[in-house]
């Protein structure tokens, strides 16, 4: 049965739809794998095996009746980051304040997954309210990196990335505000995509920073990510910032890219992302990746985006500002944790005690930072100035995409760091998202695809491919071509080289 968990989502779907195997068998295999390895990993906050098996059985029943599959992924198991609302499972956002909260509604992404016959097995761990780069900020304990259990799986979506990397599920959904899909994917050797802002509905995605948050796929192959992208993407009238246009043809692009020809594609290497502060093994792997792109026929040039140097500070003003407002609703009055209601204290006091007890240190830090940045007297110097930097970053991207089709960089400056290494140093932690933040500020598409192992520590490195807004397919095409070339050169997919945790677990 273990073999089933090693297959890609595309392969699983094909076999299920051909009725060679049943969705129930596939789901059971993955649930068994979760039982075996999750005690060591802690990728999941909630599992619902009966519901998953029932959903799988429904897919099998339909196929046996002769119904066409509801989508190309019908019957395939998947995990959802615990930041999307689910009517049948708790939604905690990794926070104590939402412990046990059962939303009375499904997120649009959840609804689309159900409608597509995708089998939702559970909810994955995350940094509290998606604030963090290591999943150590979860109120429910950290998730571990399947490549090295002493290391973080990145964050905030470390649970989704670790679950996919450890073959607990072939697919997961994450969210990316400053890199929370791409950075965990890079450090766990998975594929993670931040679609164009507005490409995937945010309705039911518990907001961290509304103007930056974007849901997207996590997978082990570029094609699987594309298949999931087409299931969860598309216009949603319940999200005012949703783009009313067809989902870019990402599956077609992934298939086209797999032919391994990038002739005529212009690739820009962002000159700002390298040098001091970058791990040598990461830079080496990146250089090898760029030379592979060249070998595939791409024209590679260096492109300077000077405003990217200011992306990190701008992000750490905009995201905390929006979060200070988005998280104001967690006051214990209508749902979630309430602390200190002794019949005597006022609502004001109970709210303050509840918020103090319900939020962890990083969330409180960012709420206060955002409160400061929006305060009268500081707004112009901080929030206002950050929004101008955002304009400059958009202009840098626009100028770059006049010259090249995609931009590339390492996804993160380093490989996975050790658990506990950066928890007391917020600034060091924030540097994890250095290369991923510009695409969030500008709203364009970006993904991370595995780029081998770092030659200094043997841990996965990610190649980031950035494309213009609504041209997500371009990033997929380049990533798919690169994936085929890398797998060919290195004798198989990187993902298959992850340590066997069942042995480790024992």
């Amino acid at each position, binding site marked *: 049965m273990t073999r089933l968990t090693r297959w890609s989502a595309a392969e699983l779907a094909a076999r299920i739809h051909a009725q060679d195997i049943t969705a129930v068998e596939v789901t059971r295999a993955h649930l068994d794998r979760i039982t075996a390895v999750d005690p060591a990993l802690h990728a999941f906050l909630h599992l619902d095996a009966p519901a998953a098996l029932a959903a799988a059985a429904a897919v099998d029943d339909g196929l046996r009746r002769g119904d066409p599959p509801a989508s190309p992924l019908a019957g395939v198991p998947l995990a959802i980051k615990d930041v999307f609302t689910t009517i049948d499972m708790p939604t905690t956002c990794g926070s104590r304040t939402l412990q046990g909260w059962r939303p009375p509604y499904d997120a649009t992404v959840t609804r689309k997954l159900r409608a597509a016959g995708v089998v939702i097995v559970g909810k994955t761990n995350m940094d509290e309210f998606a604030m963090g780069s290591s999943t150590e900020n979860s109120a429910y304990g950290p998730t571990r990196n399947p490549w090295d259990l002493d290391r973080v799986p990145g964050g905030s979506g470390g649970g989704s990335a670790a679950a996919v990397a450890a073959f607990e599920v072939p697919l997961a959904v994450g969210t990316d505000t400053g890199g929370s899909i791409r950075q965990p994917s890079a450090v766990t050797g998975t594929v993670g995509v931040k679609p164009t802002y507005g490409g995937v509905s945010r309705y039911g995605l518990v907001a961290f920073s509304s103007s930056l948050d974007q849901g997207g796929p996590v997978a082990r192959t570029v094609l699987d990510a594309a298949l999931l992208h087409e299931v969860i993407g598309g216009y949603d009238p319940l999200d005012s910032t949703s783009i009313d246009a067809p989902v870019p043809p990402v599956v077609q692009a992934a298939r086209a890219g797999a032919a391994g020809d990038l002739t005529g594609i212009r690739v820009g290497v962002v000159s700002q992302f390298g040098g001091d502060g970058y791990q040598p093994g990461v830079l080496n792997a990146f250089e090898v990746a760029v030379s592979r792109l060249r070998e595939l026929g791409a024209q590679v040039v260096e492109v300077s985006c000077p405003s990217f140097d200011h992306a990190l500070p701008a992000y750490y003003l905009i995201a905390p500002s929006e979060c200070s407002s988005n998280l104001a609703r967690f006051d214990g009055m209508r*749902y979630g944790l309430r602390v200190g209601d002794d019949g005597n204290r006022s609502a004001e006091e109970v709210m303050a005690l509840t918020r103090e007890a319900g939020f962890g240190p990083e969330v409180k830090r960012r709420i206060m930072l955002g409160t400061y940045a929006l305060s009268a007297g500081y707004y112009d110097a901080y929030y206002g100035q950050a929004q101008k930097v955002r304009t400059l970053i958009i202009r840098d991207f626009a100028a770059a995409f006049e010259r090249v089709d995609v931009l590339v960089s390492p996804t993160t400056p380093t490989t996975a760091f050790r658990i506990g290494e950066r928890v007391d140093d917020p600034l060091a932690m924030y540097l994890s998202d250095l290369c991923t933040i510009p695409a969030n500020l500008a709203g364009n598409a970006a993904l991370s695809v595995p780029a081998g192992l770092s030659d200094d520590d043997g841990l996965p490195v990610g190649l980031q491919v950035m494309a213009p807004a609504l041209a997500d397919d371009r990033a997929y095409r380049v990533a798919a071509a690169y994936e085929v070339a890398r797998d060919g050169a290195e004798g198989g997919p990187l993902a298959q080289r992850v340590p066997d945790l069942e042995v480790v677990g024992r």
Partner: protein
Amino acid sequence: MTAALMDYDEVLERFDPVLGLEVHVELSTATKMFCGCANVFGTPPNTQVCPTCLGLPGALPVLNGVAVESAMRIGLALNCSIAPWCRFARKNYFYPDMPKNFQTSQYDEPIAVNGSLAVELSDGSVFTVAIERAHMEEDTGKSLHVGGADGRIHGASHSLLDYNRAGVPLIEVVTKPIEGAGARAPEIARAYVTALRDLLRALGVSDVRMDQGSMRCDANVSLMPRGSSTFGTRTETKNVNSLRSVERAVRYEMCRQGAVLASGGRIVQETRHFDEAGGTTSAGRRKETSEDYRYFPEPDLVPIAPSDAWVQRLRATLPELPWQRRARAKTEWGLSDLELRDLVNAGALDLIAATVDAGAPAAEARSWWVSYLSQQTNSRGVELADLPITPAQVARVIALVAEGALTNNLARQVVDGVLAKEGEPDEVVAAHGLAVVSDDAALTAAVEQALAAAPDIADKIRGGKLAAAGAIVGAVMKATGGQANAQRVRELVLALVSA
């Protein structure tokens, strides 16, 4: 504790009042501002709610297009410029009746700016109030305070929250400082709110029921020494729930502030609450720190950029506005200035016009609203417009009288039935059997009976004294409880006598 008050005349001798009026109006859209929940009043608590208006994690707002058009029409009717580009902002503060702990509101980018409203006063003069802006925002939920006296917030043991009203679309219309009002400041305040109410009603965008809270007024009042041009510190009086209260609250604040200033005191910038029963204002709890609402553009909503074509199309949909209607009523109904002013002051003009629009002759429509229905407002202590009868219902009653189906006396009984919420005029007629009896068989019997009872009168009529027929008609009317068709009775009397 009652505050010391200065005599009103003395206030005016020593100070010039400056007013600022902020009126919140709930739009009568079918749904709320940012979600598809029904915008209705009086349903069980927390039944008109969804993830968005409850502020549940993950829920998002989507702007109601009709609310935006209503805001633009209000702006156009107030002679405002429509902003070519504007956004919503978040006003951040914690309060349990606000599900997200921020209010989504247009802060520094209102959709309509720089307008004016000409306000007619009781002496017929016109005062023009300059409008600063009209902007969109959302209403809050309602809190019920339990355990204290009279449901008041002070002394309550806990509170109960109902979010049915949360997210109901609001338009806030803000005046520029109103200076030079002098002694007429309270009257101008009332006349302005009245004029705004009439305008909004004509636009059909709101119920404008102050008694139900669908129109609410906050009155900012300050005094400056006469001759000065520097505004004094202002207070903002909330909870002003009727037109009369607007006038009283302004007058009270002028007298209170005059007394404070005259005794060497200082006016504190604060929110005060109007007490309807006592006609006084009282201070709310002072805030420990100054408010810092940390406004920033609402990232979950995209900007609004009305095209010229859109604005022009909306301008074309503006109905006849109150002042235009007044001018037309004067000419078409042949009213004198005084008559017109009386109608306006009684709040009857729009109602009469609507009654005329519903098919009634102007004279009858006027007569009903200014006499019988006005008397009903006095006994009930409400405004004419707040009577539970519509112009269409009045027009129907007038039509029934014209058809001969009702006498004037019966018509008043039908109106009473409508006011008692017994139903439509025709339903009241049917339920009480109030229709005029025109059935010849029944009437003939009644006339024969009356003639038999008064043979002397019958003889007089036979002798050519036709006027004597009136006595028989009267007797028949009495016998039928006023429901007989008098004209037909008279015909029958003459026919039977000569037979």
